[in-house]
């Protein structure tokens, strides 16, 4: 798989990261280096080996259905660039 400039531009846009046009060739090249490494891993024969989700044998930790959090509107909003009447205020987004 090879990443061209168009793909690099699209990935940047999807991630909402601004990349100048002249920086795209280098970015595409970096992607290709990373993907090249991943492809190399693909050469390992893992037939019949279950995907490993954790390096130590662990089970998903679970909570009970109890309300233990919340009630801190001021803290939740404290880092917001703009907040009004208890809401985050953001530039208008309408469908």
């Amino acid at each position, binding site marked *: 798989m090879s990443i061209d400039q168009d793909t690099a531009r699209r990935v940047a846009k999807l991630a909402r990261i601004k990349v100048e046009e002249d920086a795209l060739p280098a970015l595409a090249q970096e992607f290709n280096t990373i993907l090249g490494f991943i492809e190399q891993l693909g050469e390992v024969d893992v037939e019949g080996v279950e995907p490993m989700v954790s390096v130590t044998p662990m089970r998903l930790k*679970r909570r009970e259905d109890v*309300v233990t959090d919340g009630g801190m509107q001021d803290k939740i909003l404290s880092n917001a660039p703009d907040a009004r009447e208890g809401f985050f205020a953001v530039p*208008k987004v309408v469908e």
Partner: protein
Amino acid sequence: MLDLTYTAPKPKIISGAKHDWELVIGMEVHAQVSSRAKLFSGASTAFGAEPNSNVAFVDAAMPGMLPVINEFCVEQAVRTGLGLKAQINLFSAFDRKNYFYPDLPQGYQISQLYHPIVGEGEVLVELGEGVARRVRIERIHLEQDAGKSIHDMDPNMSFVDLNRTGVALMEIVSRPDIRGPEEAAAYLAKLRQIMLYLGTCDGNMQNGNMRADVNVSVCLPGAYERFRETGDFGHLGTRCEIKNMNSMRFIQQAIEYEARRQIAIVEAGGKIDQETRLYDPDKGETRSMRSKEEAHDYRYFPDPDLLPVEIEQAWVDDIKARLPELPDEKKARFIKDFGLTDYDASVLTADVESAAYFEEVARGRDGKTAANWVINELFGRLKKEDHGIADAPVTPAQLGGIIDLIGRGDISGKIAKDLFEIVYTEGGDPAQIVEARGMRQVTDTGAIEAAVDQVIAENPAQVEKAKANPKLAGWFVGQVMKVTGGKANPAAVNQIVAAKLGL
């Protein structure tokens, strides 16, 4: 369980300018899981709280916060799956669905794309007596809800409330087995009914606790059958997805509009673009949501913050053993045990509370009589005031008491209705009211005979007419009832009137 057999309904046909067309519909229903706390945080799920007060740092996506799953939400999803006779997957896993929107602080929704918790199931959607569509369920997965954006509080800003962010949703995905607008609404109603029975979703559509994305396409007659035989979607038309509908009425309108729009395009030689659309109830039309199209590359990948959900078969079996009786089974039992009609059984099993009320009234009494009183008198009366069964001022014991009074011949059916109204508005013990207000039916033939004699003596002209035309005897019965204040036993009055008139 009594096995009820059903025939499949005919698909809805819409006539275009050139052909007849059939509809093919699949639905994704988002149902909010009934739970106290959110799927991955300990914040409350309560509706209507002060904005941003039911929010944990996890929900606000503060750096370093990690999700921990609410076990009860998993249990609710499993319970829903069992209620839809579905495969329960002992292994499931969470993935990230990446997109940016102001009400999604994480920049991704935690969902289950590759390994959903529930697999294939089935819902029986009744569409009249003996007619039902079997809608196949493809899967149910657990996911987080997003927050709420409010656009009308300020001309230049949108306001975001994260209270709903992270509340657990079940996305119930159907196969394209729904064949018309009415079927779509009936399917949604049936899902809602089942989840209300199970207690897994409160079904409140107005609050958005249950909402649907509807996929609509059109095809020529015969094409759908070829699709079902081969599984090849190529036989079907290109579909459009109408997003985020939370009204049964609007869903039907939107499907109807969308189908006609697609037919017009295809018949004019055009092509349907597969796209997401929004229904505008004010204009009664669907329109393209182009802004969403570009974001459609969700770049799913397994969520590295969460290990897979591994559950035990014994735990699933335990949930299954504790399932309540579900609507289909309850309805079949009502038909079998109480001799009810299909229609009456459907009405009485519409919700758990009505069914329980009826069963209490019917216990030790005639089932059909009990059904008539509950449906015609009680439900009819409640409906007049827009009340539900929970508001009923008449207890099952009181209603049962009224039925017993009729059964013993203490009151006539007509008086029973007056008595019901008294009990409904004033309360009290039916038997005591009958005694206290002298409503007891007159079965003493002597008293009835006297009343008949009186009416005959006062109306000689009518007597002559009745002798010529026996149908007029009814007039005498009515007069006698009037004289006795409606308390005379109607059967006895009929008999005595006929005898005295020599008919």
